[in-house]
């Protein structure tokens, strides 16, 4: 793994757009009887990182999978560049400009590294991500492109998964649990790539178990608890205690303010 090593907070490099790239309005999703999300809303602007934090089962992954089209919401709307994509199929959302790096990476085991990148390729005018550009971001991939992904380390597999999503040239990039199962140094390297992704005007929505990593990276954070938003705003607005209270749903913390 190479790439710029930066651990400083990155709070938006792109221009302030008038309208958000990705907008979610009052999203409610059921898993059978279970209400996984209740009226969740969010906005992500171009060049910004919006981080979703929360405990296991808070509905973070469900939120990303619903935006990508793998779950149908009972209520609410998903808009990309102002266009309603709520009823579109998952594959046509990729064409519209939404790409998800799923939890567990989900690479294609019988495809080589290069084929994993190529299969995600969408040629879109004026969007910069070609397979060649992905190799510039991850130079080791060029020599190892004919290998199968099972031969790669966890961090390398995560890089291929990101490269596969980038090759689709998304407007909104959704990252689900990037750090899961990876060594801290690898996680820092991957997050160090963020400025380069944002500089192309992409909007990034990420779900992260590691709250401190999310707070360091994100322009805005949003905490989910049992499918509802318990906290939302710029990370510097909150004390660690406030975030902790929102994360675990501790009502008593309000009294300490």
């Amino acid at each position, binding site marked *: 793994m190479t790439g710029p090593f930066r651990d400083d907070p990155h709070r938006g490099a792109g221009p302030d757009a008038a309208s958000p790239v990705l907008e979610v309005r009052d999203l409610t999703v059921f898993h059978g009887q279970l209400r996984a999300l209740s009226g969740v809303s969010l906005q992500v602007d171009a060049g910004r990182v919006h981080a979703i934090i929360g405990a296991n089962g808070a509905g973070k992954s469900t939120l990303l999978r619903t935006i990508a089209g*793998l779950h149908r919401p009972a209520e609410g709307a998903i808009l990309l560049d102002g266009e309603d994509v709520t009823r579109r*199929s998952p594959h*046509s959302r990729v064409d519209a400009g939404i790409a998800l790096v799923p939890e567990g990476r*989900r*690479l*294609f085991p019988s495809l080589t590294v290069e084929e994993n990148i*190529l*299969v995600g390729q*969408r040629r879109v005018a004026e969007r910069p991500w070609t397979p060649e550009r992905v190799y510039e971001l991850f130079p080791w991939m060029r020599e190892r492109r004919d290998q199968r992904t099972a031969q790669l380390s966890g961090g390398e597999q995560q890089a291929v998964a990101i490269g596969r999503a980038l090759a689709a040239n998304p407007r909104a990039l959704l990252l689900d649990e990037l750090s899961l199962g990876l060594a801290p140094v690898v996680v820092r390297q991957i997050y160090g790539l963020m400025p380069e992704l944002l500089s192309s005007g992409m909007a990034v929505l990420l779900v992260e178990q590691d709250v401190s990593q999310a707070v360091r990276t994100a322009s805005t954070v949003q905490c989910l608890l049992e499918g509802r938003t318990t906290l939302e705003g710029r990370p510097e607005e909150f004390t660690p205690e406030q975030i902790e209270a929102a994360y675990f749903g501790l009502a008593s913390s309000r009294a300490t303010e």
Partner: protein
Amino acid sequence: MTWVNAVVQGILLGGLFALFACGLSLLFGTMRVINLAHGDLAVVAAFLAVEIVPTTHLPAILSFLIVLPIFLGLGYVGQRTLIQTALDRGAFTVLLVTFGLSVVIENVLLELYSANSHSIDIGSLVSKSIHVNAQISIAYLSLGIFVVAVIVLLGLQYFLSRSTMGRQIRAVADDQDAAQLVGIDYRHVFGVAAAIAFATVALAGLAFGMYSSFAPSSGQGPLIYAFEAVVIGGLGSLWGTLVGGIILGVAQAVGGQIDPSLQILAGNLVFLAVIALRPEGIFKGRVAA
């Protein structure tokens, strides 16, 4: 020398089995569909040729020019309607639907053509052969079918490993959800895979119809041989399917040489031995489809 001849004939017969089997293998590899109507579709293709040849005055050997496009279309449409609807309800429904399809096809053919044997008339070609020596002679037709089978399997392997659609077929076979997330319309990919599978089974049906006589119920034998070839070779490997077909063909030919009544039994015994000793098949399928 008669044994050498048996092996040679078995290898050639194996090409036909492999041709039957590759569509079955492709359907299972990409969408986990076990098509029990596979053999009956081959018989439909053969009957189609019986109809086409007298009306169009096309040489029988060229009947594939008409039958193949029909089956490509049938495969795509059949997948997008009947098979996909069944798939959405679960694997067991697919099995029942293809079984039902098999029964329906057989009975419709019985209604149309009665239970009498038919054959695709290819004229004098049926009896022409190359005499290698006194014991070994290779029929043009058998050799032609074998060559077609090898070309089809090689072509399919090349298509799957090199083309964009082939890459998408392998991606969908690996992980349907992840394939959707990279922008692949998996239903369309399924449709294309089914179209190819139907086209190969049509070719197999035409070859079968030229090779021997057939009746509406003739689809069951080829279905079983195709299954056996796929399992012997290893599920999910097209090379394995070719080798599996050849092993089955040789087993049948050598068995038939020992005693004509042993022909089918010998093939089945080899199949059972592979299941018992090497259940994953000779080539463990790494590349799906």
